[in-house]
């Protein structure tokens, strides 16, 4: 006993580590669960201790247990604790545990934000790496939003190790927080050309992943990828890019043309099978996208097929599999080239590998013809018999049905054969696909009128034969077939030879073991049969037979009336009552047959599955509007509990016997004739066979089915004993028939050749037989599925609305709008915003173009020019623009005119679209560069007329190296500008992107120059000077702080102060603490539990020269007066030798303006507001304002958070709202250098202050 205690305490002292745990589990094989539960108890004890090492050890063990299937989410908080350890060892354990068991609904995740942020900015690259790896597994929308900016910063980290991880994780961030895609995209694009191959590969990976889902947004990257493809040697990257091109080519056939050559080269040169395979795949995709054209088109196909054949013949099963997979893609568009390899594919059907057999099956689908269908299906039927696993057998079954039913039974020449195949398939027990067979039976019986008699006979035997009723009914999917059998026998009972027998079969007690929905059909169709039987019996003089039938019904039906299934019960009791009534009438010798069969009169037409969806919504009908008050939410409407036999259900719901007068019927008939005549799927009689049925005119004829009486209509089970399965007999018969036919034809054709009288010679068999020669055994009248009149033609491919990638369908070429800035809680690297000088740079991007255009040309001229150019070059190339491109352009153009309602517009809105449309035309240019020799000359001729443009085109067309066009001096034109850019790609593009980024930061504050899009005045106005709302907070030799204050729209008492900290010295700045002396009115929000005088730790450290932004939330009570708060920043300056504590005092100035939030206002609402009379007025006059009016407005918008309501010449009304809901209205008039501002607000003190601040703004400039 004492020993045990000692042992226990020793155990406690030397805690079990992971290895001990694993060993223990292995030693307790027989009571593993019990052992683990004691271990978990120990772990719980360990987690309670303060020592982080012990905790980490415990968490490590939990991670192992998680793998074994134990829920460890209860330890989530401890995991967070371990994650936040300063030691890498523990941190890694913590992050690993988190990555294994955290997910979106783990609530402690929100506690990790700051920890992760800290780790991301850790000086140790492995801390950052581990955090990124962990985050990639459990990133949530909140984390993604909060950390997006930090990760974006890391994408430019000095260490490639971090860069590649940061790039890769961005994909996850995009998925969770789609808004980050556009701001981050330029940098991601930049990483495609990163010097480090790993980073490059990661960027390719992410973009490929993005582009796969929404390829059209990434078309503009094609040139860049093309360059990578021709230059990269990394097979991984190549494979990804080639796969990406496979996704892009369907959107842009010209791209495909460009790709063919390099891909073919790769196919010839590469030794890597993986690369070869992907090349072949993409070439196939290209060939699919090119409908025609391409001179060496067939050569490429041949090359692909030939390479694939080599793969398929390879002894490596993997290559064989992939070869078949790719082959199936070719099959879709070029079936002929695949069909020649039929031998090989049939051979694969015998492969021992199931995956390969399945692939081969897929291929068979496309390889059947009228000629070989029976043969192939026969082979498959043999496989069905041999097949071991049910999965493979089921797959075979569906394939057989797919193959036979494809394109509206196109290849079936003998439907008797097909029905017998279906009947044979019913022998498969335990298949899941009973309903598939059933629906085929129904479909064929309904749509092929000629086959009905045969089908009914077969179904009757099926019903009579009990083999469907054996086994476990509920589980055995095959019993579904009896659904079809019963329905067909009932509906087409006029074809039954012995309806009475079938009726009896349908009312057997054993039927009650069938699933409910089948029983219901049995009962219903028994009634139909009953009607038929009555009809036939009433004709006889003997009335007792009819009465006996009624008696039979009355005896058998009560069984179903007792059914537990509502549907069965209801139908049975209904019909029972009906029959009782009929019996009564019969006893009075009343003839009832007519009336009873009237119950089931009427023709059924198959309805297309999509028919309901395609009914156009009549004008003025709003389906979403409530007719009555909406019901309480608890009521859920399940439309259809079960969706099997949808077709049937729609039919049942139709009124069965509409009283249609003859005229109407005739009209419909006519309409249907018309429809069938126009329907390509309607199998029309081929000329030769029409002769046979010449005398039966039109569609109405039900062709004579020549059932060969030599074929015994027997139970499928029995036929087995006769050696041949039934369908084989049809194959034989069909062959004979074909032979006969051929012989007859020959006789007719070649009467001259008298030496060959006996047309049945064997030679005819071996002779080639063309598809057209085979006429169907009977004229099948395949009824097409009905569609509502004026159905909507659109083929809506239903996309999954829950697909997370849908949210990422974002146009990346559009310029960044201000509203897209990354959100409040994040901080960002702010090199851009820090100095006005650099901001100016951003401006030049926009102004560059006009400057280059020698004179002071207006921008609209330039735009027109550009359009003209593009049009011309289009004409030159005589190439039709592809639709989606046009759309893209329209979009871009549309954007220029689109008013920015959100009033978050930026001064450059007008300019930027031009640069993006330039990008589009850039792509055009690149694509048109494809060596199309015929165009060269044309281009050259126009070149004389239209010097600058044409020179570019001709120059380019002659250029053999398409992505590096020659240098031309046409600096004025757009395209040459781009060319130039391309030349200096490396440097300039980066610069450009940087500028773009700057741009984004620069206008991250609201409201600049919204008027530039008002009243279509865009084009006339000069670009705005750059503006920044960040003003200096404090500065010393170590650090500089600038800040901006913004109101929080959601909370009327909060403002957010964004402070950018910039490290100005060569030392590391850490442990920054930000503190403010609260006033009564304004308080810094501190985390719960901290005192009112505690400082806030800035959540990052600053390496030399780096700046970063932190945000602090303040609560304010009254916002009518400006405020100043004193504060201090303390921090540690750390360099190699020493670390010193430093301190910097500052004064935060809360202006009244900072409580205003840019809010858009429509002019009518604005007018109402002014009329209401609640507002008090005040006014202001500014003298000597020397700036254009729109600059003035832009300044007010930008610095004071106003939006323009309306502008007429040099007079404008503006609006803004405070966080507490005060309305502020301005009327700004300008005449010469005097600007007068009339203002109204419901809070006069505040208004006064705002006006003072506006005055201040303008006095500074």
């Amino acid at each position: 006993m004492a020993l045990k205690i000692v042992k226990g305490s020793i155990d406690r002292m030397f805690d079990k580590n992971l290895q001990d745990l694993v060993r223990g589990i292995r030693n307790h094989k027989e009571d593993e669960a019990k052992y683990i539960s004691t271990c978990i108890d120990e772990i719980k004890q360990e987690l309670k201790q303060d020592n982080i090492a012990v905790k980490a050890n415990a968490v490590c063990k939990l991670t192992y247990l998680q793998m074994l299937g134990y829920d460890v989410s209860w330890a989530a908080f401890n995991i967070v604790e371990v994650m936040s350890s300063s030691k890498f060892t523990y941190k890694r354990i913590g992050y690993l545990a988190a990555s294994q068991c955290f997910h979106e609904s783990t609530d402690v995740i929100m506690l990790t934000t700051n920890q992760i942020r800290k780790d991301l900015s850790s000086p140790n690259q492995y801390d950052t790496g581990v955090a990124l790896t962990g985050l990639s597994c459990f990133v949530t929308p909140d984390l993604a939003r909060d950390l997006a900016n930090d990760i974006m910063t890391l994408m430019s980290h000095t260490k490639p190790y971090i860069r590649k991880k940061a790039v890769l994780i961005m994909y996850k961030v995009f998925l969770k927080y789609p808004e980050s895609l556009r701001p981050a995209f330029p940098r991601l694009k930049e990483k495609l050309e990163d010097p480090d191959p790993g980073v490059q590969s990661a960027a390719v990976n992410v973009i490929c992943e993005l582009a796969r889902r929404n390829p059209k947004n990434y078309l503009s990257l094609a040139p860049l990828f093309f360059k990578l493809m021709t230059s990269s040697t990394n097979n991984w990257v190549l494979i990804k890019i080639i796969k990406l091109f496979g996704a892009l080519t369907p959107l842009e056939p010209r791209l495909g043309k460009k790709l063919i050559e390099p891909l073919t080269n790769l196919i010839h040169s590469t030794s890597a099978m993986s690369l070869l395979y992907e090349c072949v795949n993409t070439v196939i995709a290209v060939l699919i996208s090119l409908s025609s054209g391409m001179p060496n088109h067939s050569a490429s196909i041949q090359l692909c097929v030939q390479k694939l054949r080599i793969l398929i013949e390879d002894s490596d099963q993997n290559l064989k599999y992939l070869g078949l997979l790719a082959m199936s893609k070719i099959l879709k568009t070029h079936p002929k080239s695949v069909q020649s390899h039929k031998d090989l594919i049939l051979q694969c059907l015998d492969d021992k590998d199931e995956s390969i057999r399945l692939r081969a099956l897929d291929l068979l689908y496309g390889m059947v013809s009228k000629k070989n269908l029976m043969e192939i299906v026969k082979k498959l039927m043999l496989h069905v018999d041999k097949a071991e696993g049910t999965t493979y057998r089921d797959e075979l079954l569906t394939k057989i049905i797919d193959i036979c039913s494809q394109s509206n039974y196109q290849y079936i020449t003998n439907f008797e054969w097909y029905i017998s195949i279906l009947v044979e398939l019913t022998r498969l027990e335990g298949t899941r696909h009973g309903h598939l067979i059933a629906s085929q039976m129904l479909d064929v019986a309904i749509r092929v009128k000629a086959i009905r008699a045969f089908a009914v006979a077969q179904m009757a035997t099926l019903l009579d034969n009990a083999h469907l009723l054996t086994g476990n009914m509920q589980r055995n999917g095959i019993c579904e077939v009896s659904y079809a059998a019963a329905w067909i026998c009932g509906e087409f009972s006029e074809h039954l030879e012995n309806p009475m027998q079938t009726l009896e079969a349908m009312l057997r007690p054993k039927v009650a073991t069938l699933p409910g929905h089948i029983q219901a059909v049995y009962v219903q169709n028994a009634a139909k049969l009953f009607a038929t039987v009555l009809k036939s019996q009433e004709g006889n003089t003997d009335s007792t037979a009819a009465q006996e039938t009624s008696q039979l019904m009355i005896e058998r039906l009560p069984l179903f009336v007792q059914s537990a299934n509502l549907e069965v019960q209801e139908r049975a009791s209904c019909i029972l009552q009906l029959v009782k009534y009929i019996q009564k009438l019969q006893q009075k010798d009343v003839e009832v047959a007519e009336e009873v069969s009237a119950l089931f009169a009427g023709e059924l037409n198959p309805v297309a599955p999509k028919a309901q969806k395609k009914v156009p919504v009549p004008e003025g009908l709003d389906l979403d509007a409530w007719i009555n008050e909406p019901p309480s939410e608890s009521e859920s409407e399940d439309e259809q509990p079960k969706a099997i036999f949808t077709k049937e259900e729609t039919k049942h719901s139709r009124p069965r016997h509409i009283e249609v007068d003859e005229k109407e019927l005739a009209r419909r008939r006519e309409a249907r004739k018309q429809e069938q005549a126009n329907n390509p799927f309607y199998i029309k009689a081929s000329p030769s066979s029409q002769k046979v049925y010449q005398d039966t005119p039109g569609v109405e004829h039900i062709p004579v089915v020549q059932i060969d009486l030599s074929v015994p209509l027997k139970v499928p089970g029995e036929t087995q004993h006769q050696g041949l399965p039934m369908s084989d007999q049809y194959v034989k018969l069909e062959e004979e028939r074909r032979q006969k036919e051929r012989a007859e034809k020959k006789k007719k054709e070649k009467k001259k050749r008298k030496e060959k009288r006996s047309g049945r010679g064997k030679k005819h068999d071996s002779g080639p037989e063309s598809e057209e020669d085979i006429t169907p055994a009977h004229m099948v009248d395949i009824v097409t599925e009905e569609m509502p009149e004026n159905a909507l033609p659109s083929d809506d491919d239903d996309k999954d609305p829950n697909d997370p990638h849908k949210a990422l369908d974002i146009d990346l070429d559009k310029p960044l709008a201000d509203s897209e800035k990354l959100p409040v809680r994040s901080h960002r690297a702010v090199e851009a915003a820090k100095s006005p000088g650099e901001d100016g740079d951003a401006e030049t991007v926009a102004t560059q173009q006009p400057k280059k255009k020698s004179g002071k040309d207006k921008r609209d001229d330039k735009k027109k020019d550009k359009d003209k150019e593009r049009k011309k070059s289009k004409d030159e190339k005589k190439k039709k623009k592809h639709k989606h491109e046009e759309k893209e352009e329209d979009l871009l153009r549309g954007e220029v005119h689109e008013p920015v309602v959100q009033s978050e517009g930026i001064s450059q809105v007008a300019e930027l679209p031009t640069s993006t449309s330039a990008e589009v035309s850039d792509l055009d240019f690149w694509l048109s560069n494809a060596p199309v020799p015929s165009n060269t000359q044309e281009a050259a001729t126009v070149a004389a007329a239209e010097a600058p443009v044409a020179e570019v085109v001709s120059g380019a067309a002659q250029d053999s190296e398409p992505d590096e066009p020659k240098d031309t001096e046409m600096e004025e034109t757009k395209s040459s500008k781009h060319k130039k850019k391309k030349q200096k790609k490396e440097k300039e593009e980066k610069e450009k992107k940087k500028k773009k980024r700057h741009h984004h930061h620069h206008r991250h504050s609201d409201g600049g120059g919204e008027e530039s899009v008002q009243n279509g005045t865009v084009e006339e106005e000069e670009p705005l000077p750059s503006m920044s709302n960040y003003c200096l907070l404090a500065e010393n030799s170590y650090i500089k702080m600038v800040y901006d204050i913004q109101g929080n729209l959601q909370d009327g008492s909060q403002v957010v102060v964004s402070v950018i900290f910039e490290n100005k010295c060569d030392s590391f700045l850490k442990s920054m603490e930000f503190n403010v002396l609260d006033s009564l009115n304004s308080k810094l929000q501190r985390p719960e539990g901290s005192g009112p005088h505690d400082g806030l730790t800035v959540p990052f450290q600053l390496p030399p020269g780096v700046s970063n932004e932190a945000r602090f939330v303040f609560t304010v009570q009254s916002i009518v007066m400006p405020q100043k708060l004193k504060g201090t920043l303390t921090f540690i300056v750390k360099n190699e030798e020493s670390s010193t504590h430093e301190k910097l005092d500052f004064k935060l100035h809360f202006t009244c303006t900072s409580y205003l939030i840019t809010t858009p206002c429509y002019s009518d609402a604005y007018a109402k507001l002014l009329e209401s009379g609640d507002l008090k007025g005040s006014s202001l006059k500014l003298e000597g304002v020397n700036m254009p009016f729109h600059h003035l407005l832009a300044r007010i918008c930008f610095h004071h958070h106003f939006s323009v309501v309306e502008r007429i010449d040099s007079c404008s009304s503006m609006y803004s709202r405070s966080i507490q809901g005060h309305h502020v209205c301005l009327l700004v008039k300008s005449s010469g250098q005097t600007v007068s501002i009339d203002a109204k607000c419901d809070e006069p003190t505040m208004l006064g202050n705002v006006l003072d601040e506006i005055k201040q703004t303008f006095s500074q400039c």
Partner: protein
Amino acid sequence: MIKAILIFNNHGKPRLSKFYEHYSEDTEQQIIRETFHLVSKRDENVCNFLEGGMLIGGSDYKLIYRHYATLYFVFCVDSSESELGILDLIQVFVETLDKCFENVCELDLIFHVDKVHNILAEMVMGGMVLETNMNEIIMQVDAQNKMEKSETFIFQSTRQDR
């Protein structure tokens, strides 16, 4: 994208499971069991691809696996990954394990699943292939192990203090 990486032995005992999408523990176990069931009944000389069907993700997903001695390495991937590429990746993974553990065997994986995770983390991140160069992977793993070692020294001394 890679949806999951599983390692289990010839008896279906999991040696490592890494899911890049969240499933409950029970579902995870079920997936492992079913994957094992699918993979284990295949002959040695058949192809290494399996259409996963409903198991994970649906028809776009494939199981790509390799069988080494007593262990199955299974990757569940979607159509954006190259099949042969993933096979190569598995090879790289195994070779890396071999280098890091010096003649890796099942026991190494049993007792050091955390290390295997750390190695894997340098190859695949969040379901995307991070690095395929074995030397680079080993270098990073070694550097981190070195760091861990320098810390473990301190860790052990604190342990003695206790």
